[in-house]
């Protein structure tokens, strides 16, 4: 248990040397590698935080974009719905107009068809009436009726206007035809002479007319001079009535 000063001093020196060795070969390298590792970890952490922040930013950006897309989609849908509504209304309006036109057309066609039917019925009625009148006049026609009609012709010829008389004489002068008198029944001699005299006087010709029989005239006479025709018989009257009614 002696204290050796040599050992004391050498141990002090030894420990200081050991302290230097440990400081340079253990503490400092380990501190440096721990610091580098910590710096690396901090860098990785900062990178991770930066990535996280970037991811958050991207997420926010994506959500904003999604919201914008949703808004645009809603807006586009609203516009589309408005356009569809407008087109639907336009289509309905067009359909309504077309239907109205079709209805008007149908109404016009129906009216035309009814008018045509009514006209056909009227013509049928006229034809039937004419047939009835023809049969009635055929039954009622006779010498008295023809005599009356001849008298009416003679009186009418004497009352013709100057223009008509001039037109008749012009037809006679053109020589396109003979003066012909058709009668349903044989004329009485006295009536025949007066009628001839009246015709010659009106036509201004000297050639006596040719008298012929036409039973289908029922009663009365038909006088022709070229294009000029004077009908005063039941057949022509019935035909004239039918033509007049048909013209109306």
């Amino acid at each position: 248990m002696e204290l050796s000063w040599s050992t004391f001093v050498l141990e002090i020196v030894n420990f200081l040397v050991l302290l230097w060795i440990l400081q340079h070969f253990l503490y400092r390298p380990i501190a440096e590698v721990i610091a580098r590792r910590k710096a690396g970890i901090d860098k990785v952490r900062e990178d991770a935080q930066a990535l996280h922040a970037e991811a958050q930013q991207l997420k926010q950006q994506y959500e904003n974009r999604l919201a914008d897309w949703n808004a645009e989609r809603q807006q586009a849908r609203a516009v589309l719905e408005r356009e569809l509504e407008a087109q639907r209304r336009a289509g309905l309006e067009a359909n309504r107009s077309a239907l109205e036109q079709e209805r008007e057309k149908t109404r016009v066609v129906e009216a035309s068809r009814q008018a045509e039917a009514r006209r056909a019925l009227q013509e049928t009625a006229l034809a039937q009436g004419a047939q009835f009148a023809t049969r009635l006049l055929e039954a009622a026609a006779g010498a008295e009726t023809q005599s009356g009609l001849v008298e009416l012709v003679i009186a009418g010829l004497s009352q013709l206007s100057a223009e008509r008389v001039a037109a008749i004489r012009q037809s006679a002068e053109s020589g396109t035809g003979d003066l012909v008198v058709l009668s349903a029944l044989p004329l009485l001699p006295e009536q025949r002479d007066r009628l001839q005299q009246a015709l010659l006087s009106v036509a201004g010709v000297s050639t006596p007319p040719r008298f012929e029989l036409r039973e289908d005239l029922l009663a009365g006479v038909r006088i022709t001079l070229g294009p000029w025709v004077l009908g005063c018989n039941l057949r022509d009257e019935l035909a004239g009535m039918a033509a007049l009614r048909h013209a109306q």
Partner: protein
Amino acid sequence: MAAADLQIAPVIELGPLVITSTVVTTWVIIAVIWLCCWLLARRIALQPGPFQTAAEGVVTTITDAIAEVAPDHAQRIMPFIASLWIYLVIANLTGLIPGAHSPTRDLSATAALAFLVFLSTHWFGIRIQGLGNYLRHYLRPSPVLLPFHLISEVTRTIALAVRLFGNMMSLEMAALLILLVAGFLAPVPILMLHIIEALVQAYIFGMLALIYVAGGIQSQQRPESEKE
């Protein structure tokens, strides 16, 4: 024979300088530590191997223990305290090697370490607080306590040296006595106790040195409650 084994035999004598087995053993320990550290420093990497992981674990654990006591100056005093712990663990366990003796069974070695602790306490205290502030703490809480402070500085240093020396020497002596009385393999249990005792004594020495140094550094620092 027992007396010869307990004697610190001189190996080389160069005039007044006597190199004992304690110094030689210390040189061997330093050489081994230097070799290990050199190999570690050469192969140190960000992805640590098993050896580097153990070394980092040791250094980190010591740094954390120092930071618990002196959080503001842990990096500054860590090399000294950590070197004490590492050296004492290895030196104390050296006695388990057949034919070798622990350097700490020599009072000269433990006294040298205790003297270094004594010096470092004042060194760190003056470096950190300044000479005036550091010397002023001997007058607190009352100048009357100055002699007791001075006596404490000496006695705790002596106690530090003698405690480690006494424990380590007594362990080797006990093992030697048991070997002499009971024969071969009988001291094995006491050698197992030697391991525990070596670790405990290294821890106690290093922790006391840490407390002394931290006390010297923080003697002028008032608690937060007093500041308020």
